[in-house]
């Protein structure tokens, strides 16, 4: 699990849902995502590869789907990801094995974990 998957888990998806979502994204057919989301992902992809090609028409497509304020949120977030990827690529830190974005489980709950696993 990478950081984006860890954060999807924090957002409430379980492992199966995360894998399903990422597998769909990794393919070229995004038809199962709602139109607004597709517009945002396509914008993000273009902005990642050729930021200089982003023009008024690209922004307008987001505005059409999200409204002005939300479109600006999408743009801000998409730009924000480029800070994060440069940090990741610059430092090349080893990925954590546990989900460090989730609060550590209380000791009592952590102690119960092996029992839960065994009972499956």
């Amino acid at each position, binding site marked *: *699990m*990478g950081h*984006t998957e860890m*954060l*999807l888990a924090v*957002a*409430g*998806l379980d492992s199966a849902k995360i894998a399903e979502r990422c*597998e769909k*994204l*990794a393919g*070229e*057919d*995004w*038809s199962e995502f709602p*139109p607004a*989301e*597709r*517009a*945002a*992902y396509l914008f*993000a*992809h273009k902005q*990642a590869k050729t*930021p*200089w090609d*982003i023009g*008024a028409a690209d922004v*307008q*497509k987001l*505005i*059409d*789907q999200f*409204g*002005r*304020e939300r479109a600006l*949120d999408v*743009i*801000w977030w*998409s*730009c*924000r*990801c*480029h*800070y*994060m*990827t*440069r*940090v*990741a*690529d*610059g430092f*090349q*830190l*080893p*990925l*954590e*094995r546990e989900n*460090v*974005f989730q609060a550590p489980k209380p000791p009592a709950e952590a102690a119960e974990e092996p029992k839960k696993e065994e009972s499956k």
Partner: protein
Amino acid sequence: MPPRNPENSSHVRSTAFRRTPRFAASPGCFTQPSAGARSNFVPPALVRFTVAVVLLVCTSLTCSAPAGAAGGEEPAAPATRGLPVLDDDDAWALLPEVEDASSRRLPVWARALAGSLPRTTAAMLELDYLYRTSDAFDRKLRARMRWVAARANRCEYSRAVAEADLLAAGGTRQDIEQLAAGATGSTPLDRAALSFARKMTLAASTVTDEEVSYLIEELGERPVVAMVLQMAYANFQDRLLISLGSEIEPGGPLPPLEVHFAAPPPDQKPEPAARPAPIEPAPESAPQKIADSDWKSLNFLQLQERMEAQRSRSGRVSVPTWESARRELDPKLYPPDRPVRIKWSLVVLGHQPRLGPAWIKCLRTFGREANQDRVFEETLFWVITRSLQCFY
């Protein structure tokens, strides 16, 4: 960073912002309000509410009416990329309470964002000042690296600002001409740093361990962490500026704006900003397929393998412990009993306790203010990491 001087006449003290959200002083001549202005005190919350209502009405009108429908009148505020840009007074009126500011002129990007993301804009203004004035490594080299990133991203706004910052740091017109002519640096360190800036911008995943190791050998770990953060900020900022269609301000790039916003009272939990849905359905649906021949070069399993490889590799910089990282941090923002476990956070907080927390403050502020769907946000992040082959 230049020392803050509250007696400096170019600085604006909090009373001016609190009591006179609309400025009487002319641009570039920013002074305390007159007694008459003070008597016209308007509570800032009322001003913010009024400006927000006016903006909302204007936005609704321009969204629902075709261009020129209102008798061919020009809008009061210029719009860039379909997004309104406020004037300085209206933008300041929406921003949080100011304690101190070096100028009344706001950069255009702040005026474009203040309407819908005022708290985030405030955090970004503080961030921008820190990054533009940082002396975590040689200031001239910092400005030149920023110039290289701006040129790689083809962001004219940032290029002009980087040139201004280079001159302010003691650089010369000749330095700028050399950069523009494609000079790659006069010393091995110079060449390595400028090459690093370009690669971090255009293909960060191809930066090698050796390239970073050389920079650390020459400069030390902390300055190189600052270099990475500067390039990270450049790639965030350039994309934002290009997306907003920001053009350099009349009269040339503005100097770094030193501004400090008052922290909200501890018992005040800011509400998420209002987000009206589009008035009309989108005229066309988004494509259902991604048109990129490279996209399918790695399938899902291969992507998982790349990520697994990332777990067992060695990092390029040391990861401070929470105990050492938190020493220079504000305990109100980073409570000692809530240790940070994320490695990159420990690196940026521990090695750059000014640049790192300023960015994290922006993230936290935006998260609360925009309050987007988290699954959507992280899915979009996934698309970007895949687009850049960043397996993290």
